[in-house]
């Protein structure tokens, strides 16, 4: 069930927003025992908004495309009065006193949130196993991880316990779980969507974006959250287009670049085959296919981890037990902060803070951080040159499909290597979408990534939409994902 289908049913009065919300809540209660996507609920508020939407419809008022359609929000995005835990013991009891700008925008469009969803602690991880609060499973097979860090967002949409969700993407955290759970995930251009009220991990890389059932829904959610915001100094000024206008079923005249560095040795055969089939689909639909080379790609992961961890160590310095979050009492300030942070942060967050502190510390800054920022420019310029010749770039989202619980959690480097196809996009600040592109022989979904030039969301939406129309068999609903109305 998609936003656009349900919106029509609401407008045609085939279904009320209250009936819809109750049905999704009932479905959620049935699947959550297995999936555990949610960390907290807001059913009462959801039902109240649903009634308000029904009142508008009864009066013949126009309603926004997302109005009355139940969604879910990643637990690092602040909703005033509701918990925002970041899946951490540090913020387990934190109640934001203000709304993120995206929430302000959505509340103006009668948005319904059924609750806050699970993630890797402070968005650090690629499997949601780093959550200190819950274990979310993949709706396609509970032995497998949902991906991360927006694992709760992807699992909620895939299992039908939300029709859509907000996630955040710092190095692939929307695209990779969307790929692992067989749904659509969009990371907008850096600065397209306001970061105000998104609990910071790596401020120069973080971006909020949609997780949805199809490309049309992703465009609708993007429309609802995009725009310039005075509260975010990195917000891009100017008007935004109506992204649904880009949903044109045609790629004739479009040039799709295939960067060979994304198709290296570590790529799983099933993923490679799905990408080759997707390229053939585009060719048969009239797109020009062009092989391109982005040779600095192999250095992107190194540059990414240095920058992300450096920024994280600085951003997370605020959790000192003084003004909000956990406090473990002690006799003096240093001891209080140290105890609070040692007990409040999980192992991966501590590891990243240590590494980030190391690369920024005296004597190492030039060797690591400065070098990484220079490599970042090379990567960005390489993308700029590629986009002189191509409209979009096509690549896998991840070298493998979802892995099993416990497979990588004890080897941080192997977990980091899963991000190899997604981090270049964040370094360059460009937009990218993950869409379902088939299934591996073990039945797990495969995701395809389409990358665009800065503020080039329309081109990737058009290419994604055209693929979705041509290959509907790639986008299936997970076994328990269909809501009964």
């Amino acid at each position, binding site marked *: 069930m998609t936003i656009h289908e349900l919106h029509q049913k609401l407008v045609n009065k085939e279904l009320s927003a209250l009936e819809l919300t109750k049905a999704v809540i009932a479905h959620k209660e049935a699947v959550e025992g297995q999936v555990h996507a949610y960390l907290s609920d807001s059913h009462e508020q959801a039902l109240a908004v649903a009634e308000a939407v029904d009142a508008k419809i009864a009066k013949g008022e126009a309603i926004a495309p997302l109005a009355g359609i139940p969604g879910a929000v990643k637990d690092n995005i602040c909703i005033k009065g509701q918990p925002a835990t970041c899946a951490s013991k540090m913020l387990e009891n934190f109640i934001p*006193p203000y709304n993120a700008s995206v929430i302000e925008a959505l509340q103006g469009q009668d948005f319904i949130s059924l609750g806050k969803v699970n993630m890797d602690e402070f968005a650090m991880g690629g499997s949601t196993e780093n959550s200190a609060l819950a274990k979310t499973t993949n709706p396609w097979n509970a032995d497998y991880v949902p991906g991360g860090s927006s694992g709760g967002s992807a699992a909620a949409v895939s299992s039908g316990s939300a029709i859509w969700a907000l996630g955040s993407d710092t190095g692939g955290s929307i695209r990779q779980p969307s790929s692992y759970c067989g749904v659509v995930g969009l990371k907008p251009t850096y600065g397209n969507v306001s970061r105000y009220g998104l609990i910071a991990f790596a401020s120069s890389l973080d971006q909020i974006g949609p997780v949805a059932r199809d490309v049309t829904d992703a465009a609708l959610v993007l429309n609802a959250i995009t725009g310039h915001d005075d509260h975010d100094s990195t917000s891009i000024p100017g008007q935004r287009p109506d992204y649904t206008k880009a949903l044109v079923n045609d790629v004739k005249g479009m040039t799709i670049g295939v960067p060979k560095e994304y198709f290296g040795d570590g790529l799983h055969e099933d993923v490679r085959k799905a990408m080759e089939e997707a390229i053939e689909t585009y060719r048969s639909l009239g797109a020009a296919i062009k092989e391109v080379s982005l040779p600095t790609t192999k250095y992107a992961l*190194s*540059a990414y981890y240095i920058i992300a961890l450096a920024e994280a160590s600085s951003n997370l310095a605020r959790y000192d037990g003084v003004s909000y979050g956990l406090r473990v009492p002690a006799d003096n300030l240093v001891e209080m902060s140290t105890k609070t942070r040692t007990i409040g942060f999980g192992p991966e967050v501590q590891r990243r*803070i240590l590494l980030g502190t190391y690369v920024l*510390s005296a004597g190492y800054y030039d060797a690591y951080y400065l070098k990484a920022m220079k490599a970042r420019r090379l990567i960005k310029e390489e993308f700029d040159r590629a986009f002189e010749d191509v409209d979009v770039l096509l690549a896998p989202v991840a070298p493998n499909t979802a892995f099993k619980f416990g497979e990588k959690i004890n080897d941080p480097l192997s977990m*980091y290597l899963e991000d190899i196809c997604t981090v270049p996009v964040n370094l360059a600040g460009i937009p990218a979408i993950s869409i379902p592109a088939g299934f591996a022989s073990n039945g797990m979904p495969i995701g395809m990534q389409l990358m665009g030039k800065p503020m080039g969301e329309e081109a990737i939406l058009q290419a994604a939409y055209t693929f979705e129309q041509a290959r509907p068999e790639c986008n299936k609903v997970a076994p328990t994902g269909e809501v009964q109305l």
Partner: protein
Amino acid sequence: MKISHEEIQKIALLSRLHIPDEKLAETEKALSDILTYVEQLEELDLTDVQPMAHAVPLYNVYREDKVVPSLDHELALSNAPEEDNGYFKVPRVVQE
């Protein structure tokens, strides 16, 4: 690059984190693995490349200097672990 136990303790202090002795070996391995991996950046020729802090070419974003409503005092203190008379309370800093 291998990182010594001494260095780990130094950055732990800077990070306000406590690493118990029995976790030192494990921490050393994880940190050294990752630092060794990222050293591949040495292979790149970065002469004359300007560092890039973020991807949006926006500089000096100013706002008008005027008073606007801000977070209510009580709300700002609503998550305080300990408060006293409208202030955040912390352990005594100045000793008697």
